[in-house]
């Protein structure tokens, strides 16, 4: 079974961890700087008085004048989410993290360990901890698992068997599908308000009317793909932090701080001479907000100068003075040395280099993006029958 763990409004919960008293008051996540003024997730108290996620800020404040807008804390949310994913991994689950607050895992490998499907899912919930109000859905298809997790109550495990998938999905609202607002409104204007109504339409007609997005939503409405869980490689744990005695806004000082952090991180013994594939620079800003940028190197880096040069321009994007600057070496390579080429690479060495290159591409763009084209009937007069693309695992 595929399982989905969901923590609705995760970013808001993460931002409220430092101010737990706000969780019981009408509060909403403020829009990120520079984005459209639409509020993010809301607390139960805000929901009760009519404030909804995605509302315009003005409308939300008019609906509830006491509404508290909580500054997003992306770096804190990412750290909390990383901690949750690690706890799941420590309990034996190979986790594919979709976004902070949503993760998928396959239960097949751990069902025997925990004595069945439900005990394994309960174990996952226990690993996350009760204060996050996590819920788990399980089904044979990915979207059905996601829908089950969204429908379940906090702390509940909801399992949907394959034969009941269609019946389970049918009465659910369209907002669960990955459709954009306009498409959803278009469907609702046509009288299609439930997932089951969309699933009952002919696929080709949906594709014609709504395009590829509509076709993919229609596929989801019928349960979605079975898919496969791609467990992530746990990130490295090399972190360097520099706290400033007072908030710093001067770019030159921050660049110097970055250079010092890069040097320290690269010289850490845990790196064990491995090359750095991906780095993250985050900052705690004055006023309590946070900021984070990640960067994947085209060629894995082995010296601190490359990190400094690559991350330097990001410093200029900082929206406010900084209280603390943090550099993480998020992903490291496995090899520790690199031999320059004297003769043309062949055989196993060539294969290894190709594999390494593919891993680099995956680190930068995510799983499932590298595929091999396999010709199956190159002579066919039907273009789509000539070749397949097969996802590569490395």
């Amino acid at each position, binding site marked *: 079974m595929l399982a989905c763990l969901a923590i609705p409004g995760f970013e808001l919960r993460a931002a409220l961890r430092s101010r737990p008293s706000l969780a019981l008051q009408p509060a909403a996540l403020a829009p990120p700087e520079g984005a459209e003024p639409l509020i993010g997730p809301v607390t139960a108290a805000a929901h009760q008085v009519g404030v909804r996620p995605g509302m315009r800020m003005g409308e939300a404040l008019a609906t509830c004048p006491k509404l508290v807008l909580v500054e997003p804390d992306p770096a804190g949310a990412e750290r909390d989410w990383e901690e949750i994913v690690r706890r799941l991994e420590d309990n034996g689950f190979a986790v594919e993290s979709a976004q902070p607050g949503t993760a998928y895992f396959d239960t097949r490998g751990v069902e025997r360990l925990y004595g069945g499907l439900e005990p394994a899912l309960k174990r996952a919930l226990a690993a996350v901890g009760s204060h996050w109000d996590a819920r788990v859905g399980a089904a044979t298809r990915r979207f059905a698992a996601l829908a089950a997790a969204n429908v379940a109550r906090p702390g509940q495990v909801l399992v949907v068997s394959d034969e009941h998938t269609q019946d389970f999905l049918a009465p659910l609202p369209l907002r669960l599908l990955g459709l954009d607002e306009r498409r959803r409104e278009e469907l609702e204007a046509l009288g299609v308000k439930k997932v089951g109504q969309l699933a009952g339409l002919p696929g*080709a007609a949906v*594709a*014609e009317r709504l*395009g*590829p997005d509509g*076709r993919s939503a229609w596929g989801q409405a019928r349960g979605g793909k*079975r*898919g*496969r869980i791609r467990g992530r490689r746990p990130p490295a744990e090399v972190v360097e932090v520099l706290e400033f005695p007072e908030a710093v806004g001067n770019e030159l000082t921050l660049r110097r701080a970055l250079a010092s952090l890069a040097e320290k991180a690269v010289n850490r013994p845990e790196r064990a001479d491995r090359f750095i594939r991906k780095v993250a620079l985050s900052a705690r800003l004055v006023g309590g907000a946070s900021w984070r940028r990640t960067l994947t190197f085209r060629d894995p880096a082995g010296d601190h100068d490359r990190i400094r040069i690559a991350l330097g321009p990001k410093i200029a994007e900082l929206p406010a003075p900084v209280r603390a600057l943090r550099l993480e070496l998020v992903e490291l390579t496995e090899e520790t040395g690199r031999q320059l080429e004297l003769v043309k690479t062949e055989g196993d060495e060539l294969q290894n280099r190709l594999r390494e290159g593919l891993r680099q591409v995956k680190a930068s763009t995510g799983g499932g993006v590298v*595929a*091999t*084209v*396999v*010709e*199956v*009937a*190159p002579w066919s*007069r*039907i*273009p*789509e*029958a*000539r*070749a*397949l*693309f*097969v*996802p*590569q*695992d490395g």
Partner: protein
Amino acid sequence: MVSHTGSASALRTAGRLNEPRPALVEPEADGAPRLVNRLAVELIREEWRVLDRWWTEQPINRRYFDVVLESGQNVVVFHDDEHGRWFSQRGA
């Protein structure tokens, strides 16, 4: 035929290359496209028919057009005569 050497699980997740995509086409009276995705057709470079798998339950009956649009884009579209719909396709 080139045989695939990958694992069975990899094959399960394989997709087809150059799958047709639904296209918004407004045809002339003779069935040739006049507008493709709201852009006027400047030139029809080539036209051909593909009739295949007529012995199966999913026969293929397509009328292909290789067209140049007013934007300068070169697109291949076909009318699926079996289902009465238009698609665009790469690799044709």
